[in-house]
């Protein structure tokens, strides 16, 4: 009986504390408005606005041949990859425009280009690429080489009178099937990854800031002498903030991702929300550990930056995880976001269930438990 009643009051206190946190957040109107903005409009803008694939690379052409072949070649540089911004007659003009950042690629076609192609000689076109952004520069060069190779082979075979006989040559064609996002709609990827960024950012900051605020004002001592355990104090904060973040996630999912970008939910939505809750808990663990180390909010901010920055940039949403150095991959096994990325894309786009995802889920559980435990341990030790 007493155990039952004890559990009931324990639960009641937890609920009361959680409610208090929610009220406190509710009164902070700028923060609340900002939360809503972050999960709606901001997801919309970055989902629709960003493409990391080569798009509209500004192309300048210096055509010294002005022949049918050179025009045909230029014609193959098409949007969305390239945007022809003009023709120039002086190579120095090209360099100047590259300097000013008004062009990214300058294509130089030599005189006698057409003639050489027709008579079966080898000829070379030159390409100047601005590589201040290395991956984009490489990508532009790769596309150009691809365009030139297919153009060259086609023209040469045509001039050798072989164009109609393609089937009777040992050509290997490469057929691609893209899975999980067949049209390679980058808006799916960008909107989902923006949502992941927001969830992670708020999951670290909200509970940590709430806990440190109590420490700073000294209200935490009042709480500690009241009949609530340290666990309840910490857990209620995480509970309140997780609820808020889950609501905001639902807003982003059913307000933006689904209706605007038509992002599918191939797996179970319930599973997705459950695992999102797990991610928020685990990530909040980081924030709580930071909060026990810090004395005031400015310190928490710095420490949170220290954790969140690398987490957002190195977990694999902005750059491919497989190609990162080994030591980074090793450190990032500590990042819950790293597992959450696999989980989210797995559930939403690949339709995976727990049978396939048990590994990342297990890793996250382990990580979350450890973080929470050590946060609790530190918190308790500080006040006893």
């Amino acid at each position: 009986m007493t155990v039952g009643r004890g559990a009931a009051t324990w639960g009641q206190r937890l609920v009361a504390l959680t409610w208090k946190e929610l009220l406190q957040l509710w009164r902070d109107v700028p923060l609340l408005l900002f939360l809503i903005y972050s999960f709606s409009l901001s997801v919309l803008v970055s989902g629709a606005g960003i493409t990391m694939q080569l798009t509209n690379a500004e192309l300048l052409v210096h055509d010294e041949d002005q022949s049918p072949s050179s025009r045909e070649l230029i014609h193959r540089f098409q949007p969305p990859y390239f945007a022809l911004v003009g023709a120039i007659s002086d190579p120095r003009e090209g360099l100047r425009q590259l300097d000013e950042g008004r062009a990214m690629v300058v294509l130089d076609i030599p005189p006698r280009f057409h003639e050489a192609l027709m008579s079966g000689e080898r000829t070379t076109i030159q390409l100047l690429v601005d590589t201040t952004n290395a991956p984009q520069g490489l990508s532009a060069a790769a596309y150009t080489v691809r365009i030139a190779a297919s153009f060259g082979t086609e023209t040469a075979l045509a001039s050798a009178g072989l164009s109609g006989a393609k089937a009777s040559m040992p050509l290997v064609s490469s057929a691609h099937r893209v899975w999980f996002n067949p049209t390679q709609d980058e808006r799916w990827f960008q909107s989902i990854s923006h949502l992941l960024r927001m969830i992670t950012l708020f999951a670290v900051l909200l509970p940590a800031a709430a806990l440190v605020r109590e420490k700073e004002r000294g209200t935490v001592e009042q709480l500690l002498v009241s009949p609530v355990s340290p666990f309840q104090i910490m857990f209620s904060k995480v509970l309140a903030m997780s609820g808020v973040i889950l609501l905001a996630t639902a807003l982003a999912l059913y307000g933006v991702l689904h209706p605007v970008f038509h992002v599918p939910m191939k797996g179970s939505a319930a599973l997705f929300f459950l695992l999102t809750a797990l991610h928020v808990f685990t990530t909040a663990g980081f924030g709580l550990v930071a909060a026990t180390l810090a004395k005031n909010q400015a310190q928490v901010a710095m420490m949170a930056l220290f954790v969140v920055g690398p987490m957002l940039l190195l977990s694999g949403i902005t750059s491919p995880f497989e190609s990162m150095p080994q030591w980074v991959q090793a450190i990032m096994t500590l990042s819950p976001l790293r597992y959450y990325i696999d989980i989210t894309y797995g559930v939403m786009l690949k339709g995976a269930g727990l049978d396939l995802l048990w590994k990342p889920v297990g890793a996250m559980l382990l990580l979350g438990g450890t973080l929470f435990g050590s946060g609790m341990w530190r918190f308790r030790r500080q006040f006893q």
Partner: protein
Amino acid sequence: MALKEWKETTRDRLFLLLAFLLPALWLVVFGYGLNLDVEDIPFAVLDRDQSEFSREYLQRFIQSRYFSFRGYAHDERTLDRLLTETKIRAAIIVPERFQEQLIAGEAATVQTLLDGTFPLHTDIAKGYVIAINQAFTEDRLIDFFRRSRGLTQEQAGVLVRPLSVEVRYLYNEEVRSTWSMVPALVMFTLMLASPLLTALGVVREKETGSIYNIYSSTVSRAEFLTGKLLPYILISLVNVCVLWLMAVGLFQVPFKGYFLLFFFAAVLFVCCTTGIGLLISLLVQTQMAALIITMVVAMIPTILFSGLLVPVASLTRGAKVQAHLFPAMYFTNIVRGSFLKGVGADVLWIDLLALAIFAAAMGGLTYHLFTKRPKT
């Protein structure tokens, strides 16, 4: 005023340590860790032909540094499962009779399955597949022409590939990811740390109520604001020098431009970013709100819209407008221009002007907003 704020900031040892250490540490972590080159794409193979040609074809993928071989599969179902579990990102299926068809001079098709969840990586991976496939095809064609037409290796080579491209990479001649990332990361770290420090400093006064002492004192608005900003600007400028030294010394990024110009731009930029921090701190009441809003305002547009990862030219119109509203984009131009391109004020004056306008606007706005406070 500045002295007081300085004392208050320096008293908090941990905070001060983090304020100087954080930017430097970030530069190290990101500079080494943020590798944007797509390499080591994990892939598996289903070889239905098991012939000399199919092995040679696959060997080209296995040896490529862009791909990382994860084993042979025996049926398509295994490949499905590996893709869904994200064990592999690509799968190559060589059909039966691959060698037979090629020797008979017929066309053959190799099937490639790609994971499309990360469209950029998919696109790059597709490019690699096409390039390797192209090289294999060219070799087969050269072989074919030698046998069927009695051409020499060289003649057949010209026939198959008459046009070559000579690519010259400008500014970043070895096309190193770090060279393009590190200068931009200097901008990124400044953009995050400075407004945060400022915002927290002001809101701290508001929350503890000590700001009322200022309201009732004889300190003028301008004195208060500059006094608040000065220490943070100083900290940030020290950081600018440290980051510059690290970029040049540690990462060996060439600095081809003019240091004075770069430093002047950095001063303007730091004024902008601390101004943002101040503005936010005037609008909100709690440190929690200041912290979160500053982080989101500073971090997200800077990652996405500054040209750090994505060139501004390839953004859609809405995102482009947002890019032009933040100072980060202009400073990225200046940083990359000064480090890699070695251009001077004649090219960068527009960006400098934009930064100056932004800084002035921030100053005016905060000055204007601050007047209203004591009345309410």
